[in-house]
C-alpha cells in the first residue's frame, strides 16, 4: 500500500518546481483545502443511551430483540444473542419495528362510535368510561342469564395472554374464546392430535437432521416460526460438517424451493397422495423402522377390534391404494422421482417431513387434515418421532396454575353452551372455526350474539371472503376492538380500545419451535407514546368493575403482576428475566421409547377418548371415536368421499374446487417474508418498499404466473390482468415466474388493505376477497387453496 503523499508535502514540491510559492500559499489559504478524512472524529449522541431487551411480535416467530434507546427514543433493534430462536439475528420486519412504534397512523386513545356503524365518526372517551361500558354490558348479559352470547375472537395471543383470555371468558360464562388458528396451523395441530395424540404444532430438530422433506411449508419465508426454520436451515446446511439435503414439494418454488436441493412441482392439493406414495415405497422396500412400527404404533398391521370386526391396517391400505404409478397420475410427480425420494428419505436417517403450515396448498376441503396426517405418517414410518433430527413435542414452562374459579352458577351454565363457531357440533373435529363465526352470526346459530370482543383480530381482511363479517356485524349489537390501528374490522366496532405496540407493553412470550421450554419477556422500552392500555390490564379492570364472582377469579391489580405470579416457577427471578429478556432450559430431553415420560408427554398426551398407551396411531382411534358411528350419508355431508376404515386412515381426498373448468388456475395467496402475516406491517413504508423483491415489484401487488400458461393467454410480463373467481374479481399486474406449476397463480398476502393507514390503504389487491369462503365441513379449517380463478387481460 503506497502511503499517499500528504497534500502539504506535495504542494511544497510543486511550489519549488513551479517557482510561484507565494501564489501557491495564497491559494492554499484562500481555499482552506483540508485533506479528506484527516481529522474527523465520532460525535457520540449527547443524551444518555441504554439497551432494553424485548421480544418482536411482527410474526409468530417471536425473536428476542435488544432495543437501543437514545435520548428516550427507540433508535435501533438488534437480535438478542441470548434468545435461542434468533441468537442475535433479526429479519427485515424486526429491523423496521421502529416504524411501527412511531407510525403516524396509530390510534391515540379509546374511541366510541357516534355516527352510523362503519361511518368512521368517533368520539374520544377515557379508559374508565370504556371499562364501565364493557363491564355493564357483560353484567347485563349475565343478569339475562345468557353470558354465552358474548364471544371473543382473538388472533396472535402470546404466552399468558391466551390462557388469560380463555379464563376471562370462562369467568364471564361464555365458551366462545375463538382463536384464528383455523386460518393457518390448525391442520397440523389436528393431524398431530389424531395420530400422535398431541394437540400442538410439532417442533422440528433441523439442526441434527440429514434429510428435510417439506410439504408445502413455506419454511424460509412464512409459517409459524420462520426465523427458527432459517436458523435451523442455515446450521444444517453450512453450520456443521456434513451438509443436510432439503427437498421442497410445493406447486410454488418461492425462496424455500429456490434454496432447496430439489423442488418438486406438484398438482395442487394432492400432497396426501404423494406422501402415501412415498410410504408405499418405504414399506414395500422394508426400509421402515420396524421397532417403532411394531412396538410403539397401532393400526400398522390389520387388526381385530373389541367386537371382533377386522379392520384394514395402514400397511395394507397404502400398499393397495397408493402404488407409485397411480400416485403419478394424481400428483403429476414421476414414479421414478417418488421411488428415489422414498429411498433417500428412509435411507438417510435422521430424516424429517415438515407438516404443511399456512400458505401450503393443502387445507382444501377435508384434505387439509388427512394430508397433514399422511405427512406425519412418514415421520412415524422412519421412526423420526422424538429422535434427534426428527419431530419433537414442544414443551413449555410449568407456570403456576390459575387459582380455582369461584362458584358461579350463571357462568357454569353458560360455559357448557354450544360454541358460537360450531366447533364440536357443526364441525365435529374442529376446536376453533374462526372464519365460520360470520355465517353463524348472520344465521343466529346456535344463538344470537350480543357482544363481540376482538383482540388482535382483523377478520374482515384476513379471512377468505371476509366481507361476510361486515354483514354479520349488522346483527352484533355491541362490538369492541383492541386494534392499535384503525383496520378494516375496527372501522365497524362500537368501541376501539387501542393496545400499545409490542415495544410499549408487558407481555411474556413462550418460545416455540425448538422443543425445550423457554420464555421471552416484552417490556416497555420507551414511555408509551399515546393513551393506550394493555388489553390484559383492561380486562383485569373490567373484571374488578363487574364485581364478584368474576372479580374473584382475577386477584391481580395489573398484568405485570399477573405475569410475575404466573412466571415465578420458571426458575429465574423477575429481575433476571427483565435484564436478560429471555429464560430457558436449553437442550431438548428426549424421552426413551415406551418410558412413562414418552407416554405422559410425547405420544397420546392429549387424547381424550382413545387410550393413552404411548402408541402412535397409524389407524386413528381418536378419529374412530369421533366419527365412528356416522353413517355413509353423514360422512358424505362432511365431505368424505370414502367410507369404512379409510375414514380413520390418512387418504387422498380429491379436492372439490370452487369454480369449474371455466376457471383453469388454482389461486394461492402467499405470505411474504417482507410483509409478514399481520395487517399493521402493511402500513410500514420500509416493508412496502421491499415487498416484491422476488419479482422486482415495490409498493404493489402482482400475480405470479408460469410463462407457458401466460403465453397461451398472450399475456406479457407486467401486463394488467383481471383475476376472477366465482366470488369476485381483482385487477393487478401479471409477473412471469418460470419456477411455478402451470396450473397455479400466486397473489401476495397483506396487500389491498382499505384501512389501517396511509401506506397500506388502497395499495394492491387482497387475494382473500375472492377465495372460497366455505370451511372444511369436518374440521372447520378455512379453505385457502381450493379456489379456481381465470385470468384475462385488463
Amino acid at each position, binding site marked *: 500500500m503506497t502511503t499517499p503523499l500528504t497534500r502539504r508535502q506535495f504542494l511544497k514540491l510543486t511550489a519549488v518546481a513551479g517557482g510561484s510559492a507565494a501564489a501557491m500559499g495564497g491559494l492554499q489559504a484562500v*481555499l*482552506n*483545502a483540508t485533506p*479528506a478524512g484527516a481529522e474527523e472524529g465520532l460525535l457520540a449522541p449527547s443524551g444518555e443511551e441504554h439497551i432494553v431487551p424485548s421480544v418482536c411480535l411482527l410474526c409468530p416467530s417471536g425473536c428476542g430483540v435488544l432495543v437501543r434507546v437514545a435520548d428516550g427514543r427507540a433508535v435501533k433493534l438488534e437480535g438478542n444473542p441470548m434468545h435461542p430462536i434468533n441468537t442475535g439475528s433479526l429479519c427485515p420486519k424486526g429491523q423496521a419495528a421502529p416504524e411501527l412504534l412511531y407510525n403516524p397512523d396509530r390510534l391515540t386513545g379509546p374511541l366510541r362510535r357516534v355516527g352510523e356503524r362503519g361511518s368512521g365518526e368517533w368520539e374520544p372517551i377515557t379508559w374508565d368510561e370504556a371499562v364501565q361500558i364493557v363491564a355493564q354490558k357483560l353484567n347485563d348479559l349475565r343478569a339475562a342469564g345468557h353470558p354465552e352470547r358474548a364471544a371473543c375472537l382473538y388472533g396472535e395471543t402470546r404466552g399468558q395472554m391466551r390462557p388469560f383470555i380463555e379464563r376471562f371468558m370462562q369467568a364471564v360464562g361464555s365458551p366462545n374464546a375463538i382463536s384464528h388458528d383455523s386460518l393457518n396451523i390448525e391442520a397440523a395441530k389436528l393431524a398431530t392430535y389424531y395420530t400422535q395424540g398431541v394437540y400442538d404444532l410439532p417442533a422440528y430438530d433441523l439442526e441434527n437432521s440429514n434429510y428435510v422433506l417439506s410439504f408445502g411449508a413455506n419454511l424460509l419465508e412464512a409459517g409459524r416460526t420462520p426465523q427458527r426454520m432459517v436458523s435451523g436451515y442455515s446450521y444444517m446446511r453450512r453450520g456443521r460438517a456434513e451438509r443436510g439435503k432439503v427437498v421442497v414439494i410445493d406447486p410454488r418454488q418461492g425462496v424455500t424451493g429456490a434454496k432447496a436441493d430439489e423442488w418438486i412441482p406438484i398438482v395442487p392439493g394432492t400432497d396426501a397422495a404423494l406422501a402415501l406414495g412415498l410410504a408405499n415405497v418405504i414399506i414395500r422396500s422394508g426400509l421402515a423402522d420396524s421397532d417403532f412400527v411394531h412396538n410403539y404404533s397401532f393400526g400398522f398391521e390389520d387388526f381385530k377390534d373389541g367386537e371382533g370386526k377386522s379392520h384394514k391396517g395402514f400397511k395394507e391400505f397404502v400398499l393397495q391404494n397408493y402404488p407409485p404409478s397411480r400416485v403419478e397420475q394424481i400428483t403429476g410427480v414421476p414414479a421414478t422421482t417418488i421411488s428415489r425420494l422414498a429411498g433417500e428419505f428412509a435411507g438417510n436417517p435422521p430424516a424429517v417431513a415438515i407438516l404443511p403450515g399456512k400458505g401450503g396448498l393443502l387445507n382444501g376441503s377435508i384434505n387439509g387434515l388427512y394430508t397433514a396426517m399422511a405427512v406425519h405418517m412418514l415421520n412415524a414410518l422412519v421412526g423420526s418421532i422424538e429422535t434427534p433430527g426428527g419431530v419433537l413435542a414442544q414443551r413449555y414452562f410449568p407456570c403456576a396454575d390459575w387459582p380455582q374459579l369461584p362458584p358461579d352458577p350463571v357462568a357454569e351454565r353458560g360455559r357448557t353452551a354450544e360454541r358460537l363457531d360450531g366447533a364440536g357440533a357443526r364441525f365435529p373435529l374442529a376446536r376453533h372455526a374462526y372464519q365460520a363465526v360470520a355465517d353463524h352470526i348472520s344465521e343466529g346459530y346456535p344463538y344470537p350474539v350480543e357482544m363481540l370482543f376482538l383482540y388482535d383480530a382483523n377478520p374482515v381482511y384476513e379471512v377468505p371472503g371476509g366481507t361476510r363479517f361486515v354483514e354479520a356485524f349488522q346483527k352484533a349489537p355491541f362490538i369492541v376492538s383492541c386494534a392499535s390501528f384503525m383496520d378494516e374490522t375496527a372501522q365497524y366496532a362500537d368501541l376501539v380500545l387501542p393496545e400499545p405496540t409490542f415495544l410499549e407493553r408487558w407481555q411474556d412470550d413462550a418460545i416455540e419451535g425448538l422443543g425445550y421450554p423457554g420464555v421471552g419477556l416484552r417490556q416497555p422500552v420507551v414511555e408509551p407514546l399515546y393513551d393506550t392500555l394493555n388489553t390484559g390490564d383492561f380486562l383485569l379492570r373490567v373484571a374488578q368493575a363487574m364485581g364478584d364472582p368474576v372479580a374473584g377469579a382475577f386477584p391481580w391489580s395489573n398484568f405485570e403482576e399477573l405475569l410475575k405470579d404466573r412466571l415465578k416457577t420458571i426458575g429465574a427471578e423477575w429481575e433476571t428475566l427483565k435484564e436478560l429478556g429471555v429464560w430457558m432450559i436449553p437442550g431438548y430431553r428426549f424421552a426413551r421409547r415406551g418410558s412413562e415420560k414418552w407416554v405422559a408427554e410425547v405420544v397420546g398426551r392429549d387424547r381424550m377418548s382413545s387410550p393413552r398407551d404411548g402408541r402412535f396411531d397409524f389407524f386413528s382411534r381418536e378419529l374412530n371415536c369421533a366419527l365412528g358411528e356416522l353413517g355413509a350419508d353423514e360422512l358424505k355431508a362432511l365431505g368424505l368421499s370414502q367410507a369404512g376404515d379409510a375414514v380413520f386412515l390418512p387418504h387422498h381426498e380429491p379436492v372439490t374446487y370452487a369454480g369449474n373448468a371455466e376457471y383453469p388456475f388454482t389461486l394461492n395467496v402467499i405470505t411474504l417474508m417482507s410483509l409478514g402475516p399481520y395487517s399493521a406491517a402493511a402500513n410500514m413504508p420500509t416493508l412496502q418498499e421491499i415487498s416484491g423483491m422476488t419479482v*422486482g415489484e415495490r409498493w404493489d401487488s402482482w400475480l405470479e404466473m408460469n410463462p407457458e400458461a401466460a403465453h397461451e393467454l398472450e399475456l406479457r410480463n407486467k401486463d394488467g390482468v383481471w383475476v376472477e373467481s366465482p366470488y369476485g374479481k381483482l385487477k393487478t399486474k401479471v409477473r412471469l415466474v418460470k419456477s411455478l406449476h402451470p396450473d397455479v397463480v400466486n397473489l401476495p398476502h397483506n396487500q389491498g388493505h382499505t384501512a389501517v393507514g396511509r401506506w397500506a390503504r388502497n395499495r394492491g389487491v387482497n387475494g382473500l376477497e375472492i377465495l372460497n369462503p366455505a370451511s372444511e365441513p369436518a374440521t372447520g379449517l378455512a379453505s385457502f387453496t381450493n379456489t379456481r380463478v381465470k385470468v384475462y387481460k385488463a
Partner: protein
Amino acid sequence: MKARSVHPDNKHEAIILTPLQDITTIDRWLWALLLGLIGLGGYAYVRQLTLGMGVTGMNRPVYWGVYITNFVFFIGLAHSGTFISAILRLAGAEWRKPLTRAAEAITLFSLPFGVASIVVDMGRPERLLNVISHGRFQSPLLWDFTAVSLYLCSSVVFFYLSLLPDIALCRDRLTDVPAWQHRMYEILALGWQGRPEQFHRLERVLDGMAIFLAMLVVTVHTVVSWVFGMTIQPGWHTALIGPFFLLGAIFSGTAAVVIALAILRRVYHLEESLPLGLFNSLRKLLIVFTLGWLYMMVSEFLTIFYGNIPEEMEVFWQKFTGDFTWLFWAMTILVFVVPLLIFIFRGKDSIGWMVTASVLINVGMWLERFVVIVPTETRPRLLYELVQGTYRPTWVEAVITVSMFAGMFLLYAVFTRFFPIVPVWETAEEPGAEVPPVTRRRRRFGVRR
C-alpha cells in the same frame, strides 16, 4: 485627438455594416421571445434547484441523461468555428474567409451553454469551486474542465483578435449610432490604428493560434468522450469513442455553420459576400464527414456484434431492438441516409436543400449522443434482472434544453446587430479574384495610396 484608424477598402463594406445601423422591431420581437424562453429555462432550473434533481427523469441506474447529452452536443457544435477557421486557415483555403467569423461565433455562443449544461447537471452546483480547491487530476472530469475552459478562453481571444480591425472600422465609420454603442466600439477597439505592422502581427498571431486551436479541438472533444471512455461500462469503454465523438463534433459543427450562413445570407442579404460557391465547398466537406461518420458507426457496432460479449451485447440489443430502437434508427436515417442523398442529388447549388440536410444532421447528432450515453446506463455491467433502467425525460429537462438553444440564438442575433458578421478586413479584396498568397498581398497592401 480621437484615434483615426486606417482601413483596407472593401466593396461590400456598406452592405456588411448596414445591419449594425438600426435595430428593427422584428429584432426586438425576436429578442423578447428568446429572452422569454430563457426565462422559462431559468424558472425550470430554479425549480430543480429548490426541489432537487428528482424533478428530472434521471434515476438509478440512468444517472446521466439529457443534460449530459446537451453538454456533449454544445461542445460538439463549438468545434465548427475553430475547425473551419483554424484548419482551413492553415490549409490556406481562401474560400473560408467570409464565413470564419460566423463559424467562430457559433463556437463562442455554444461553448458557454456546454459548460452551463454541466453545472445544471450537478447536484450541488454551489460546490463547483471544489473542483479547483480539491481537484484530482486523475479524474477525466478534471481533464474535461481544463480542456474546455482553455478552449473557451482561447476561442474567445482568437475571435476577439480577428474582430479587432472591424471594431475599429465600426468605431470610425458608424458615427450616427447611439452614443453607448459608439463608446463600446472605442473601448473594444483598444486603440487599433490599422497600421500595416499591426495587421502583419495580427496575421502572424492568428496563424500561430490557428495551429494551437486545431490541436486543442482534437484534445477537447477526445477528452469529452473520455469522460465516458474511461469508465468500464459496456458500450462506453471502447478505444473508438474518442475519434467517434471528434468526427461527430466536427460533422455537426460544420452542419451548424451551413445553417448559420444560410440564415445570415437570407436575413442580412449578404448574397455577394457569402457566394453560392461557399456552400458547394461546404457540401463537399459534409459528404466526407457523413461517410466518415458511417465508417465510425460500422466499425464500432460490427466489432461489438462480432465479439458477442454478453454485457456488450446487452447494450447492443438495447439499441438495435430494445427500448431505444426508434431513437437509434431515427438517428441513423437522420444523420446518414437522408443527408447523403440530399447532398449527392439535390445539394449542388441549392441552399434550401443544404439547410434541411444540415438541420437533420444536427437533430440526428443530438440523438446520436443520447443513444451513446443512455442505453449503456440502462444495462449496468452486473447483469441482473431488476436494475434494468428506463428513462423518460421530464418537462424540466426539455425546457432547459430549449432555453439553452434559445440562449445561443439570442447571443448570435444580438452579436450580428452590433458587430459585422462577415470579416471586413479579411475580405478586403475584390471578391472572386484569384487571391494571391499571403506574402504578396501584404506588399501590395502596404503600397496602396
